[in-house]
């Protein structure tokens, strides 16, 4: 059962072969057993989850269930869920119980999804290894010496270790795709504006986008059907007709044009990752696809551009954590200024402070033009690269990350090395495009490799089709780490 697809679970629930309570309890038991070693969850509340499961069972019994009714899904601890502690991986929100639901949580509630608990993450989604969490690092289920990637590392590890059938993530510079790649699961970051950001705690508002993380592309499509939708409470939400993201899953790939950016297969890409990605592309050719070389010449600029814009927005977004109204407040202080300083000094971790400092600097009088404005201009050039590339191809493919999962502690003292692990994912956020990672084998050290699929704006259904056809022909996505 722990390996079942969402479709299979849905069928079992509908056929009363299993109740939502039993299913939820089974995953809660696995969490109780395995989470102490993996640290994938920050908050588990069996009572709340089971109450939702009971409600789902009633709905199923009355024939009112939908395709996701009764299925437990783990939620990244960045989504506000009413009555649930919502920490964003930070000490400064370690005591914050959300009094309202994010749009994503509301939509899941409406679909009858059970909230299985809140997953660990890099503090305020700032990190690529899950080591910046106030609640301790997450271990990669494939090798507990390795990081699971970040920032949605808890969700990725939970799905990889089968502690949850599926989970949610958010992706600002690769935070869904990179941990999906490093833990051998699937994750899709939709086009910016497809999933509402309301109630999703902001890191960098112009880049943040929520999305599903699951074992297969088909599961991702079902989850995205529930998550995506226009929201009047988010001004950047796109007012589009509801989509069925499963609609194209069965389309054959004959004639599909796959663009291979030469910059993604250049220096810095580990040979074992390159081999796995090339093998996956060979498989696509067997499925009838053709490849074409494309160029994304500004790829190298995406990291410096991102590390100007994202910290700039973050420095402002995180100002509200000031100890005045909610969250952590330093226990002792002499006056208002001292309270601000101590609260933020004690409440934020090193990486968050580093980005607040960078962001404050680049927005300062006298530096704004040289950094922020320049980065905005380059952001348009980076997006333009993709527009050009999509004249030649239907989807772009390449590695999700330059290496397989690195070891815990390996890059934590070298922020730039850590930032470079997002070289293939960041440009997608800067352009606002949808991106996906699917399992494509293993590296020399036995750790998973992810294949990245980048689509044009609103091409999610196409990308899921491309991923699903590959998964019909291969079995990488069904592999499960040993010892779990």
């Amino acid at each position, binding site marked *: 059962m722990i390996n079942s697809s969402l479709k299979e679970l849905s069928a079992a629930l509908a056929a009363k072969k299993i109740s939502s309570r039993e299913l939820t309890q089974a995953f809660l038991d696995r969490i109780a057993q395995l989470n102490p070693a993996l640290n994938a969850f920050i908050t588990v509340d069996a009572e709340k989850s089971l109450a939702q499961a009971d409600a789902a069972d009633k709905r199923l019994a009355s024939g009112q269930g939908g395709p996701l009714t009764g299925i437990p899904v783990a939620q990244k601890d960045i989504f506000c869920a009413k009555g649930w502690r919502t920490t964003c991986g930070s000490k400064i929100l370690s005591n914050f119980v959300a009094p309202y639901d994010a749009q994503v949580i509301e939509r899941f509630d409406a679909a009858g999804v059970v909230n299985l608990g809140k997953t660990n993450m890099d503090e305020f989604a700032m990190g690529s290894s899950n080591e910046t969490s106030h609640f301790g690092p997450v271990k990669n289920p494939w090798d507990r010496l390795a990081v699971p990637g970040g920032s949605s590392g808890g969700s990725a590890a939970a799905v990889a270790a089968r502690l949850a059938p599926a989970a949610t993530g958010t992706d600002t510079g690769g935070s869904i795709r990179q941990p999906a790649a490093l833990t051998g699961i699937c994750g899709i970051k939709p086009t910016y504006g497809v999933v509402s950001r309301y109630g999703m*705690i902001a890191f960098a508002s112009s880049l943040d986008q929520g999305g599903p993380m699951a074992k297969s592309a088909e599961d991702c499509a079902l989850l995205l059907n529930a998550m995506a939708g226009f929201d009047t409470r988010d*001004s950047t939400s796109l007012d589009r007709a509801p989509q069925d993201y499963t609609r194209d899953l069965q389309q054959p790939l004959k004639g599909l044009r796959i663009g291979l950016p030469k910059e993604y297969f250049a220096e810095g890409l580990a040979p074992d990752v390159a081999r796995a990605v090339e093998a996956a592309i060979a498989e696509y050719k067997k499925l009838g696809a053709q490849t074409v070389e494309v160029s994304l010449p500004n790829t190298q600029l995406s990291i410096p551009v991102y590390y100007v814009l994202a910290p700039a927005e973050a420095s402002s977004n995180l100002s509200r954590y000031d100890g005045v109204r909610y969250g952590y407040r330093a226990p002792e202080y002499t006056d208002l200024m001292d309270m601000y300083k101590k609260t933020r000094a004690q409440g934020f971790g090193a990486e968050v402070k580093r980005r607040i400092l960078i962001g404050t600097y680049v927005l300062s009088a006298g530096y704004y033009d040289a950094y922020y404005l320049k980065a905005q201009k380059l952001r348009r050039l980076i997006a333009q690269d993709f527009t050009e590339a999509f004249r030649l191809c239907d989807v772009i493919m390449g590695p999700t990350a330059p290496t397989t999962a690195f070891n815990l502690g390996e890059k934590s003292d070298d922020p730039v090395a850590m930032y470079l692990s997002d070289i293939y994912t960041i440009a997608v956020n800067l352009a606002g495009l949808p991106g996906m990672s699917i399992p494509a084998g293993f590296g020399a050290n036995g750790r998973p490799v992810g294949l990245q699929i980048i689509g044009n704006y609103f091409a999610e259904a196409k990308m899921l089709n491309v991923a699903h056809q590959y998964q019909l022909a291969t079995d990488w996505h069904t592999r499960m780490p040993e010892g779990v």
Partner: protein
Amino acid sequence: MEWETVIGLEIHAQLSTVSKIFSGAATAYGAAPNTQACAVDIALPGVLPVMNKGAVERAIKFGLAIGANINRESVFARKNYFYPDLPKGYQISQYELPIVEKGDITIQVGDQEKVVGITRAHLEEDAGKSLHEDFHGMTGVDLNRASTPLLEIVSEPDMRGAAEAVAYAKTMHSLVQYLEICDGNMQEGSFRCDANVSVRPKGTEKFGTRCEIKNLNSFRFLERAIEYEVARQIDILESGGKIIQETRLYDSDKDETRAMRSKEEAFDYRYFPDPDLLPMKLSAEMIAEIRKTLPELPDAKRRRFIQQYGLSSYDAAVLTATKAMAAYFEDVVNKAGAAHAKTAANWVMGDLAGALKRDNLEITHSPVPAGKLAGLVARIADNTISGKIAKEVFEAMWNGEGDADAIIASKGLKQITDSGAIEKIIDGIIAANPDQLAQYRSGKDKLFSFFVGQAMKATQGKANPQQLNDLLKKKLAG
């Protein structure tokens, strides 16, 4: 040396929307602290701002009224600073691309008209309030006002003294109420002014160093603060000192301005476009629709009153100061007849305005509605009563004793216009006062008013004044 004062004003007008600029919470004044602050207003993690269309429409209406450019694309920016009553740690405002740019407004200073340029007007949210009293050395925060919509109206440095600044502020105050975009309530902070003040030697071009004075929430404080500040700056300059560019606070209790922070201490607000709000695009259709809703503006109304009713420029300005007063006046004129516009104007600006002020009433709540005042004006016009008797009738109407005709009848106030009757009374008075008659006839002209007084006394003021004068002159001459 002779000095010239240079003033520019920044006015914050609270827009009269029911809900806040970026949330659905109510904007009503005076609710218990923090009962009108929703998740968005208190900046919970994950919340997002959504633009209130009503606030945008009001800003456009204002821009059209001052003949300004309405920017088809404008941008919301974050102004970052920490303060307990600023929940997000930034204020959403407009910085580089405001919704309204480059307009002007005509003000009336004494008998002179002057055009004042408006640099820009932009939309922004208000902050909450810090409450320093009643918390035993701690500070309370009330976020009811947080995210209330404001239109910040920035003038050019076109004003040359406190009188012009006050005239400008009053004209603007009248305009926003005409447009029904702001209730203009200064006590409740719906209309607030900051003044940028500098002085320069008369005849020179270059601006002096300016100081910004904050917290001017009445026209009187605006005037006093500017006068104090101008005197302070001239004192410094004349004693060889230099003005430091700074923000100063006006203390109405001490009637002085004092330094808040200097330019060096000024915050770096780190403005940048708010990524939560896309650039605001306005269609030509939307602007055209709003243009259709523009009322006749105070300036146009004033000019029309002069032309249509033959009023003086001053009278027209007073009568058009508020939309309600102008409407009341026109209502009286329509009912009493346009020929009597001047009489109507005198009554509206005189006895009516005085009574309203005395009883602290708005003209819309006048106990004497326009129809009744028109009835009184008509009786003055047709000589049924004199202006003097009319005051008595007005007071009776004010006290609810009925309309003018009923009061004239019941009190027997109808004017005596029968020449025979008036002559008879005059004869009696002349006969009873032979000494005064003799003195008058020997050249003491002043005694004429003595006889008028006696005659009026005898008729209880009801004799037609003109007839009485004529007949008295004739009889006294012998």
